[in-house]
């Protein structure tokens, strides 16, 4: 009796496996064999980013930027004479989702490159899968450490925090004379917990003092306790390393509690919603850095701005620009290499020097890390978002 039970359970499991196998094979027959990406007429690009969920704010503008780049490429005859097609699945900002989607792009959809993800953690998940499958992944937002180290198929075009934060801290301490600083970290936000130590190190190295440290969580709205503490600490300025939603809410609370303080942060604060949510509370009181600015744009950026506004009837942000650039840089590499095979064109990609993109001038260093110059120091001024405060040059090492 026991024997039969085990036999039947095994049989049941086998049947389930066979079922899934059939599913797998069936779809294999529809598409060309694995290992030969883009054998069809179209060059496919897979979008990585969240369209719903809490980080959709980065994915949605990114998708628009990518769509625009692809439309422009197709209008000019595509890449190497082939039309380009973007495929957009929503990864909801979850690591298990992005892992499934990345695999699906590579093995089922047979894309030629992956564009995204805007966050560091998820990029690492996707990059690991992409590297194993010899697929180029080009992140347009991962600013944290340990991304390109995953392998030679992994690229990114962002302003690195390790480059920008020290420049901004120098501006705070030496230009503004803010010596006593408070630091607030968003505790459940990987970007923030990675950026805080970079800021803290820069502050200590340049002679500043951290007099208060606190944490918040993304997704919360009540920051009254933290702001009350901050008010009693008496800092010259506040460094906040999280995202713009929480930044605006903290500043709202500060205004309510009669606390007049300037907030300095990273490019996580770059979002239209900073001005929309913060209103008068953030005006000229929040300063952040980014590689991209719609205020006083370069000629390339100016053209991008006009086109983007015409197409989507809204202003682009950093992510739209970086996704746009990512597609264009990949198109350039494919054209230069005369191939859509990731193992071939990735060599051209690594050689990229002084590429005049809409999100700044990009060069890949020998370790494939990007350098973007200059660092734009941005703020909110009246109706203008973002308003350019200063451009701080970065030396390419």
């Amino acid at each position, binding site marked *: 009796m026991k024997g039969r039970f085990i036999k039947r*359970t095994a049989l049941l499991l086998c049947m389930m*496996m066979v079922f899934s196998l059939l599913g797998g094979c069936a*779809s294999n027959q529809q598409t060309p064999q694995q290992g030969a990406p883009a054998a069809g007429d179209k060059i496919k690009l897979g979008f990585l980013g969240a*369209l719903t969920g809490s980080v959709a704010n980065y994915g949605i503008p990114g998708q628009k930027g990518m769509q625009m780049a692809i439309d422009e490429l197709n209008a000019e005859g595509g890449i190497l004479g082939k039309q380009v097609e973007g495929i957009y699945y929503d990864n909801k900002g979850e690591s298990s989702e992005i892992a*499934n989607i990345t695999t699906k792009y590579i093995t089922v959809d047979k894309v030629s490159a992956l564009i995204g993800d805007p966050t560091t*953690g998820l990029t690492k*998940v996707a990059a*690991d899968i992409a590297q194993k499958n010899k697929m180029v992944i080009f992140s347009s937002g991962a600013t944290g450490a340990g991304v390109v180290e995953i392998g030679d198929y992994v690229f990114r075009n962002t302003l690195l925090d390790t480059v920008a934060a020290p420049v901004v801290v120098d501006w705070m301490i030496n230009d503004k004379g803010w010596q006593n600083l408070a630091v607030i970290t968003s*505790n*459940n936000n990987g970007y923030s917990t990675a950026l805080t130590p970079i800021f803290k190190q820069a502050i200590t190295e340049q002679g500043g003092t951290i007099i208060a440290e606190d944490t918040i969580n993304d997704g919360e709205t009540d920051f009254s306790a933290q702001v009350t503490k901050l008010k009693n600490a008496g800092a010259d300025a506040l460094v906040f390393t999280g995202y713009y939603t929480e930044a605006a809410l903290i500043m709202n609370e500060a205004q309510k509690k009669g606390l007049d303080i300037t907030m300095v942060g990273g490019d996580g604060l770059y979002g239209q919603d900073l001005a929309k949510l913060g209103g008068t509370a953030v005006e000229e009181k929040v300063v952040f850095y980014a590689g991209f600015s719609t205020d006083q744009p370069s000629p390339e950026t100016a053209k991008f701005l006009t086109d983007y506004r015409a197409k989507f009837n809204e202003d682009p942000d950093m992510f739209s620009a970086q996704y746009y650039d990512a597609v264009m840089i990949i198109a350039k590499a494919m054209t230069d290499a005369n191939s859509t095979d990731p193992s071939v064109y990735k060599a051209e990609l690594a050689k990229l020097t002084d590429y005049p993109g809409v999100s700044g001038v990009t060069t890949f260093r020998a370790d494939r890390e990007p350098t973007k110059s200059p660092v734009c120091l941005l703020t909110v001024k009246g109706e203008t978002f973002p308003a350019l405060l200063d451009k701080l040059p970065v030396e390419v090492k």
Partner: protein
Amino acid sequence: MDAFLNQTIDAYYLRIMIIIGINIILALGLNLITGVTGQLSMGHAGFMSLGAYASAILSIQLDAPFALALLGGALVAAFFGFLIGIPTLRLEGDYLAMVTIGFAEIIRVFFLNFGPGGKAVGLSGIPQNTGFTVVWLLVLVVIILNRQLLTSRVGRSFYAIRENEIAAESCGINTTRVKVLAFTVGSLLGGLGGGLYSHYMYYINPQDFGFMKSIELLNMVVLGGMGSIPGTIIGVVLLTSLPEMLRIVDEYRLLFYGALLVILMIFRPNGLLGDVRIYDIKKWWGKKGGRGT
């Protein structure tokens, strides 16, 4: 075996099958606590994260062999399952549910502040040892052991507690011990599943194991049918593959998912295979094959 599968099956489908396997182990653990013993636990993701982190840290920091890492993760989770089992002596129903939610939240906050786990940045670079063969072999072992447990004396006392705790007690069942046992074994499986998960995903972070993950696992157990091993398996297969199939309607996917849960509960309130046990399928199977036992 894995190499052969990698060549013949599309990686995407292989991936989903592995995830299904891992989820079966996780859900069977929860089924033991909630489905069989009737102790509503809404914090199973907490045990999963304990197993995931403990085994990942063992692998990364101590270079422990895969089997040892998995075992370590499962034991850590089981220990905390034992701890959380103790308040169940005094609490029941929704109070217990609240304690399990609270416990899972505490674990999540702990890992958000836990240096060796990488805090909110998460832990990456976990060796990817989990493969199809390992997962499904473990699934087989877990199913068989689970079934042995449920048909044993202890297993029947699990069901007895769910049906009527006082009656069970007056029949001489040491309800205290049995409930703690259910929690310990259930969280052991949660930890095992977590270990497999982290060694498959390469990267984990505390937000992966939030409240919604616990709810997802609970959905699998209830949807398939509480207390039933085949039911749980069906629940897992459905709820893992359904979102993948609904990817075509992407934006509306969660809308469908929510509506589907409501509709299923209205028409099959006890789950698809409510309380169908392997024993029943066997009887049905035996009859069909003309070899009744």
